[in-house]
Every structure is written in structure tokens, then in C-alpha cells.
């Protein structure tokens, strides 16, 4: 492991909240899932090939299986669980437009959703009106074994519409 254990004082900023973490030497993926219970971020391959573990770090899509938690430091991390608008009690008030688009235009098993949703969120943040090529380019690194690639393109286009409407 390239990063030494930094002790229990390590803090991560996840979905707008600080969390103390015990195992900063672990990949971010396992800290999110197993220490913090944020199981919306999925494991698929462990080599950064499938995209199921994608999260946003400082707004950019990152394969969390490839990043040691300690290396994230104070950069804000956003996972699937952090996208919706919630009230003070934590109840969902509104889905993020990308989430709503994938409810309206669903995939099949959904294990690959973190990659497709997070890449779309990042895309729309920098380009609110992406053309088909831009959508395909942003989504392309993520696998979907159920074969929903055309649906993903439609969902991201729909998300852009929803985001512009709101």
C-alpha cells in the first residue's frame, strides 16, 4: 500500500458531512461501503475497469476502488446517497435530475448505476446541454452487463432536460 495508516484521526467529507474513519489505508470504496455503510457505491472489478464504484471527488468522477481513502484528504466526496435533496430529517424531498431520469428511463439490475449516474452528474455540471457525442463520451468508460447502453444515453439526455426545466 503506498499510503501509510494515518490513525483514527483521519476525516473525510462525504455528502456534505465529516466522518471519522478508522481505516484510511483502505481503498475509498471499502471505507464508504463497509465503514460508513454507504453501499450505493458498488464493487465490480477492483481494477478500475467497470465503473461500478464511481464517486465524485471535488466534482470529478473517480473510481473509488483505485483511490486510497487517505489520499482524498479534505476534498469533498459525493456518492449516490448524496445526490437527492433532503429535508432536515433526511427524507428525500426531490431526486437529483439524473436520478429522476434513471427512474423514468430505468436500466435492468442497476449494479452499474453509480458509474452512469455519477458521470452524468459531472457532465451536466460542466455542460448543461450536452450533445449525443458528449453524452456518449462521458458514459463510455462504464460497463453495463445488462446491456442498457442505449437507455443510458436516453436517460442522460432526459436528465439534461429535467435539469434545464428545474
Amino acid at each position: 500500500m503506498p499510503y501509510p495508516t494515518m490513525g483514527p484521526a483521519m476525516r473525510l467529507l462525504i455528502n456534505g458531512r465529516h466522518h471519522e474513519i478508522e481505516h484510511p489505508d483502505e481503498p475509498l470504496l471499502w471505507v464508504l461501503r463497509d465503514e460508513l455503510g454507504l453501499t450505493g457505491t458498488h464493487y465490480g472489478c477492483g481494477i478500475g475497469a467497470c465503473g461500478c464504484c464511481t464517486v465524485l471527488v471535488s466534482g470529478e468522477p473517480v473510481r473509488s476502488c483505485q483511490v486510497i481513502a487517505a489520499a482524498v484528504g479534505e476534498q469533498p466526496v459525493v456518492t449516490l446517497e448524496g445526490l437527492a435533496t433532503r429535508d432536515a430529517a433526511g427524507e428525500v424531498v426531490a431526486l437529483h435530475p439524473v436520478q429522476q431520469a434513471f427512474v423514468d428511463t430505468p436500466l435492468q439490475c442497476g449494479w452499474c448505476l453509480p458509474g452512469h449516474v455519477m458521470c452524468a452528474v459531472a457532465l451536466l455540471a460542466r455542460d448543461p446541454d450536452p450533445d449525443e457525442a458528449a453524452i456518449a463520451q462521458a458514459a463510455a468508460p462504464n460497463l453495463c452487463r445488462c446491456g442498457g447502453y442505449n437507455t443510458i444515453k436516453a436517460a442522460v439526455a432526459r436528465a439534461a432536460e429535467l435539469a434545464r426545466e428545474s
Partner: protein
Amino acid sequence: MTDTTDTTGAARTADTTQPAETPRRWRVTRRRLLIGAGATIGSLVVAAPAVIEYGRPFLAEWMLGRGPGSAEIPESALIWFELTGQGITLHVPKIEMGQGVHTALAQAAAEELRVTPGQLAVVQADTQRGFAASAMFTFGSSSVANLYLPIREAAATVREMLAAQAALTLGVAAQALTAADGVFAVTGTGRRLAYTEVIANHRGPWQEPDEKPVLRQAHEFTSIGHSAARVDFRAKVLGEATYGYDARLPGMAYGAFAVPPRFGATLLTAEPGDARGMPGVQQVVIDVAAGFAGVVADTRTRAWAAVRALKLSWSEGSHVDNAAIEAQITAGDGVVLRRKGWIGSALGEGRVVEAEYRTPLAAHAHLEPLAALAHLPAGAEGKVEVWVPTQSPESVVEDLRAAFGEKREVVVHVTQLGGSFGRKGGQHVAVEAARLSAATGKPVHIGWTRETDMRQAFYRPPTHTKLRGAVGTDGRIRGVEQHSAAGDIIWAVAGLPEGVRRVLGFDPGGLLGLFLPYDLPAYRLVNRRERLPVPTGPWRGLGLLPNTFALESFIDELAEAAGADPLQLRLAHLNDEPEARRLAAVLSAAAQMARWDEPLPAGRGRGIACSGDVGTIVAMVAQVDLSGGRLRVTGVDVAVDCGLVVNPAGATLQAQGSVVMGLGSALREELQIRDGQVVSDNFDTYPLLGMADTPPVRVSFVGGGEVPHGMGEPVVGPVPAAVANAIRAAGGPRLRTLPLRL
């Protein structure tokens, strides 16, 4: 499948809303599984080898015709439908692995309950609630086809029970009530009563009506046949859905266990080695007699690391590689599964075409690797409770009882499945997790690495098909002789003595797609099955994709030899039988979608292929572009006749997804075996089709009907043949081996 009456019985008595003494009032005829039928036939086979020689073709046809059946339907509608003050909850007795079955069955239920989608809560049945024995086995694209009527009948029964209670409360006759959107209204008055109030007013056990309820007519449908939103997707986009990898309990630890270094290797000795002292390791668990060596640690990666530090020795196992496996799969000698006409003289007329086709081992490559959480107290007593992504909860119950005692109470909670495609039919990892939980007294979760998942699997078996056919300049096929060879599928996972399998000579799964659907004067099919040193088994569609690749490529080769249009040659050899007419209809529909008759520029071509499976008939046209010496699939047009379409949006996803998976097999997937082990064990070495290589896929449903047929597998069948035919039509070579490479 064996009976699990104990489990169901325990579940019924444990739940107060499920009447224990209600007689069975509605049911479907029990149909045996292919496996069960095969086992029964197997004993006959041994007794009468002379009879089997002549009876085998009829036996094969009969087994193929039966298809996958559901086995047990529960006695009471209230096993599936739970009535509470909040409303109605459907405990779906099928597993959700992305195929959308929870949504489709909820639609069928909502239709008869007369509720809106939001008024019906949908949850996964488990062995405590909603479990209907082997009906929960989710396989063979059979869920919607087999439960479409039973779910509707159960839902209508519940509606009638609610109506009786509502009539009582309102002081009117039940006939005076109309039901819509979860509310009863008294005809001719403004009086209304919501289902939730009806349930709240009710005391004592519910009485199911003696009469079979009247089902809605197709023209009245407001839910069935209309696209519905997926019931599970809001939770999935929020990251709140629980898949097998996500199952957790307070105080749980992470487990891992040693897996053999080669196929067939068994554990000889095991010692903790350095594992015990490694960081976070809580326990090393060794049981050589059970072939088990595992560790429990405080994090998953530490468990994975520690298991690699165990000191283990294994028996030799197999050193097989791809070449050896391919050599074993050689079409030639075998058993005759179809004979029609006089093939010898038929092949003496017209132009004779000979060709051989091969398909490789392929992996399921579901994106969620196998996983399970288990909790059981130390000692020989107490409940074994597991959370596991499985297509077959009953198998998990059996596996756990085999390991922990036949009398042991077992509770299986089925999670969401992150893909499966046949792989999660058997899911032994629940037993390994339970062994570690038993040793530590803690809940233990095991999640496999991708590499373990790819190595400790079973695979789509390789095939070799030799075809000889004769065709005249009149465009009529004189006859076809087919020699097929494949590794086992059903026999590889079902317990049947090898001697019986050998006499039988075919594998029931290998029958799918095996027979040419065309009306030929002469046809002879010789089949050979092989037990391979590599684990093989069910993969989406079983034999459908490999067999269809060979047969539908060969039909195009005959068309080319005859100078005939491939579509017209197919249509000319389909007779007036119902299935043949349906094939002709989907072929024509796909051709029309793809503008079959319009010429394409040089370097581009269209290919057509078709197949039938589980009552569903599919044809598709693939278009390819070979310009620049590179193969690109630029579009696929699919026409499907799956009978009644319950959820058009869901069925379209199934069809599109099947095309993409079929393209993966056509263009990329080939499992690499060296020295008795899978070496293509992650997505860098076993590349899946990605977005960049996925063309537009247009899907059209034709035919229709009163009942739905399967949609999980059939569409995967014709994909590689359609692409191979398109390559040839574009002026490229005739490619006869998957994956297709220019």
C-alpha cells in the same frame, strides 16, 4: 427439485394473516422441471436401451416442448398478498435480477386488485413469507409466463375477499360494489370505502371465496400491456437497494475462504501459516474434511489478504487448457436426435455445402460478484439465517441443511441480484459464510473478488457443429445433416449418474436452438454431449446462442450456394405449422424494419437470423460496416413475438439487453483457460461490450396473444448469426468461429 414443505409450513403457521386450514382453491397444473423429467426418463433409459435408440428423437422433442415449468403454487392467496392497515403488499415469489419481474408481476396483480401502482407495495418473498417452494426458482425465462395467471387469480381472490368485507361494512350486496384505484364504490350512490379502511375494519381470519374469481378481460386492461415504471428503481438510484454485496448486520465481520488453484483440485492440508498474525484477522477456520479453509477479519481487504497467507496444499486437479477442451468437443459420433427422409440420397442432389462452426467457453460476468451474509449461533442448534443473491433459494436451503443438519431451521432472505444470467442459480457462498459465522458467533459477510468470481464459476460450454447440406438451383434445400457436440449444461449441475447421461446422449439444455426450424425433405441430427474438466452450466439461453449461431449461419451459406436471398430462402422453407408461421411473421417484420430490400453502399451489409425459445419467436437483422478493414455493427432491428407483452418498456429493455449481450459473445467474449485455471479473470482480459461498440437497437413486438411467453433469454439467440451473415453480405469472409474476427 425436492420438496420443502417444512419451510413453507413453518412460514404459514408463523404468520397470523395466513389461514392454516384454507383448502387449495386455485392452482395451476404442476409441471415438472426439465431436470426432474430428465431424471425420470433416465431410469427408463437404463432399463430399455434398445427402445431409447428409436425413442430418443421423440424424447428430445417432448422435453423441449415441455419447457421450464413452475412447480408449486401456494394454497392461499394470502401467502403472496399481505393485508395491513397501510394497504396491500405483494410478496413476489420470484427473484429480481434486473429482468423486471417484480414490476411485471405487480402489474398483473394491480390489474386484478384494481389498485394504482402506488397502492401496491412490492417486496421480495423469502422463506418466511410468500415462499412457494420451487416456484421461487427463477430460471428459463419462465417467471411471467408461469405466474401471469396464478398471480392474477390470487389478486382477484383478494379483491373478492375485500369486496365481501366492504359489503358487510356498507350494508350492501357485494354485487353492488365496483372497485377502482383501491376504492370500492356503491353503484348509484356516492358512498365509497377505501381498501385500507376495509382492511382496518376487518376482524378475524380472511375467508377466501369458494368460487374462482372472475378475471378481467383483455379489453378492460389498464395495467397489463401498458409500460410501467420499475418498482425497484427509486431505491436503486438513491443507493438504498440491498444487493447481496450490501447485506449487513450490526457487529458483522468479513470473511474469505481459500479456493482451489486448478479445476478439480481438492484441499489436502491446511494450516493458518502467517494469516493468524495479520492485521485485523480475528479467526482462521479450517475444516479439511469439508474442504474448507477460511478467515474472518475486520475489513474485507484484510480478509482477502489473509486468506492468501494460509498454508495450503491441494490435490493436482486438472491442467487443461483451451486447446484440450476444444479437442474434446468434436462433432461426429453420437446419438441420433432427429431423422427425417433419406439423408444419403438427399445429399447426392444439387450443390453440397459443408461447414463447421465453433463457439467458445463464455462467462456470465454479472457485475455484482457472488456474495452472502450469514448469521448463526455457535453450536448445533438455532436458526441459520442468510441473505443471499440467488435465483434458487431452495438450493440454498438444501445446501445449508446438508452442511448444518437436515433438521436445522433455515431462513433465506433473497436480496436484489446485480445481474446473474444463470450463474446465481446455485449459490454455495452462503454455506461458506455460514461456516465462518458458526465458528465466530458473529454475522459474517463474504464478497468474492472479481477474479474469484470469474474463476470459481461454471461457464457456457463450448460447441462444435458440422453441417452438410444440399441445395438446388431452384432454391430448395434437399436435406441437411447436422453433427453437434457440446459440453453439458443441465447435467453439469443436476445429479444424474454419468452412465445414464451417456445412454441418454444429450443434455436437455443443449436442445435449446439445436433443431433447424425449417421444413426440409431430409434432416438428420447426430448429437454428442461431453463432460468437460471445466465446470459448465446454464448461461442465458443455455444452448440457444451457440446452436443458433451454427444453424442460422449455415442457412445463409446454403442461400449463397443457391444464389437465393437469405430471407426468401428461409420463408420458402417455413410451412403452415403455427411456430413456422410465427417465424415467417417475425422474419418479415425484422426485414421490413431494416429495409431489407434497399441496397447498401459497398462495405456494408445486412444479415438476418431467427430462433424460437420458451414459446417466444425472434428474428433480427444486423447491419455491419467493414470499411477501413474494421468490423462495426451499426444497427440491429429486432422483431419479437412473445405473445402478450405485460410491460412493453420492460420487455424492450430485455430485448435490447439481450442483443448487447449477444454482441458481446459475437465480437469479444472468449474465456481463456491455462493450466486448469481461468486466466481471463477480470474485465481487462475478459472484455465486455461497451457503449462505444453498441449500435442502436430497435425492437418491435409482433403477434400478441392471450398469454405471455418468456423474454429473459430468447432474443440473445440469433445475434451472432445475424452479425456473421451481415459480414458476409458486406463482402467480408464467412466467419464460423466466435468471437467473430475479420
